[in-house]
């Protein structure tokens, strides 16, 4: 199932972004909405392995300013009961090296999140309900990192459109409960073959004017799973851009539960044998 951790291939991001729809009043509108919901569910259910391990580089660029780069390892595991665990470990630069973020998204929708800051040598619980706020100064909000179930949005299929060489389905998603998202609307361009979003437009305050745009630059099938290998997320107002490049990704390695504990969060050495 693909619907969970953002780095399970960044495709999962798009799928979460995929979901918001106004229920149309007309019979035709209802049919379009139904198709949209089905597509959103298919995107959510896209196979992405029982677990994954990724080496990711995040580059933050802004015109006229030196680029900043963060390296990270991302471990993700899905349990049989739909619980999803994600451990992100920063490997670079030195001032944040060793910092870890552990997120347990429970099957009941309850999330628990802890951060480990090497300078403090303390594991601290953090607000898992945080939606806004930039993740390590990137263009990703904390909400973008979390699982978003298709039922949290209403979805509407708007038609077909080409993104580069790919013919895509255009999906509009609007939150059912406006308070549970930073975004008022999302538009996703879904490749029906890979079920990856090739482009996502995010609307924060104005439902007519996108504030951010995700573009998938490269995707690959790794161990049979479609994976976004290179993507950009651009703040359309400032031009600030976050580029995520997946250097290596491995699926289905039977990552142990012990990797997703506060002990492993505080002790980098525990994950050493699972690094790609």
């Amino acid at each position, binding site marked *: 199932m693909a619907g969970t951790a953002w780095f399970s291939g960044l495709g999962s991001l798009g799928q979460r972004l995929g979901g918001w729809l106004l229920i149309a009043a007309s019979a035709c509108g209802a049919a379009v909405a139904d198709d949209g919901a089905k597509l959103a569910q298919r995107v959510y259910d896209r196979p992405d392995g029982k677990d994954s391990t990724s080496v990711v580089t995040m580059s933050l660029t802004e015109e006229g300013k030196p680029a900043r780069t963060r390296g990270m390892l991302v471990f993700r595991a899905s349990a049989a009961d739909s619980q999803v665990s994600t451990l992100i470990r920063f490997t670079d630069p030195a001032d944040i090296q060793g910092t870890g973020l552990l997120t347990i998204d429970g099957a009941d929708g309850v999330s628990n999140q802890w951060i480990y800051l090497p300078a403090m040598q*303390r594991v601290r619980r953090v607000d898992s309900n*945080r939606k806004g706020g*930039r993740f390590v100064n990137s263009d990703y909000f904390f909400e973008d990192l979390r699982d978003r179930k298709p039922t949290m949005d209403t979805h509407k299929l708007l038609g077909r459109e080409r993104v580069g060489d790919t013919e895509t389905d255009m999906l509009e998603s609007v939150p059912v409960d406006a308070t549970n998202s*930073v975004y008022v609307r999302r538009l996703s361009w879904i490749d029906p073959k890979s079920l990856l979003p090739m482009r996502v437009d995010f609307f924060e305050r104005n439902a007519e004017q996108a504030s951010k745009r995700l573009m998938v630059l490269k995707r690959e099938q790794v161990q049979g799973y479609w994976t976004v290998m290179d993507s950009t997320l651009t703040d359309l107002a400032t031009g600030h851009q976050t580029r995520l490049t997946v250097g290596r990704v491995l699926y289905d390695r039977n990552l142990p539960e012990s990797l997703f504990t506060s002990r492993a969060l505080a002790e980098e050495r525990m994950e050493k044998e699972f690094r790609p």
Partner: protein
Amino acid sequence: MRGRQIRSAWTTSGLVMLGALAGPPAHAQDTGLKVDALRLEVGGFTDEPGATGSALVHGAVSLRGDSGDWSYALGARLDAHSQYGNRDFDRVRLDYTENYLRWQQKDLRLTLGTQNVLWGRVDEISPIDRMGRVDFSRAVLDKLPDRRRAVPAVRAEYFGEGFKLDGVLLPVFDEAVMPQTRSVWNPVDTVNGRILGIGALPGMVGARVVKADINGAGGGGLRFTAEGDNVDYGFSVQRVRQSQPYYRVVPGAPVVLQAVHPFSTVLGAELETERLGATWRMEVAVNSAVPLTTQSFQYRTDPSLNVVIGAEFFPGDSETRVTLQVAGQRVMTNQIVLDRTRIYSFTGEIEHPFANGRWRADLRFAMGLNDRDLYINPRLSYTGIDRQEIYLAAHLFSGAANTLGGFYRRNDSVVVGWQGKF
């Protein structure tokens, strides 16, 4: 073995091993040689008659490695402090950081050597945090983690299903790192006759300060912590010596101030939970022996109750991070003492990154709730270059004579600094 000798031995062995084992710097790994910190800071005092300015140079390096069930850490730090003006001084001090050998199995981890031990959960004032060695060389100018240093310890940690048992033994005591005698941050002012926490004592002018009890063991403790859905909690018991000295008055001519480090038993309970859009952190601790001085300059100890409740939140779900804490300490004594027996304070920190995280505006503060006591630390940092930070900050103090803000009320300063980690 005295603390200074211990420090010297650890530092020397650490440096020798560092030199012997160091290879090319490791990149993006938790092992290898690393420059943990480099820092330069200069500042000027606006109101202190004895000092016009100060400078700090700090560096720390470490080497880490592992093989099988074993791992090690070697590290050292260098701190050079200078103060300018009538009370000028230069001090260069080499110290150990983490130098340990560790053996670990699935559920058990044993560590022998100097190591950082930071218990407790709250920021700034943590009554459970008694194991580490206090760094008071710059009073409270730095944040809590930078005011703690490694301590010689034997540590056993057991990791169970959702819980952890942490046992620490401090076989040799090493005292806190205190400011140079002439430093404006020294808690004893023998020029004007003042002691931090008590205030003006005219008889202390010209007093001689001596170390009294820096031999022996540091004590030990046991801490249990557990995690649950939306709540983490813990309990601890410690029998430790406080590393930061208390100055015992020995009347005479001149008066002698003995820097003592009394043992006390501390029972602690802690809680961390996520509610109402905030992360709440709480600590309660009972301390069996808080050192005090009676009006007749008799030294005694009495128990105290400490409670701290703190919250961390992001207003408006934005990037601005706010931590607030209310702390209270009540010393149970039936004697009239010179020390404060009720201390209620409100502390906090606001961090506001802006310009896509290339800049950050911070504000730390601590204010008394039952006494006039204020410390404000605004800071503007440029963080647009990876691994480096350039900052401009101010430290402003005011308050009654027996409070921290009052004791350092002439130490208002403006500083500019650079720090990096490589």
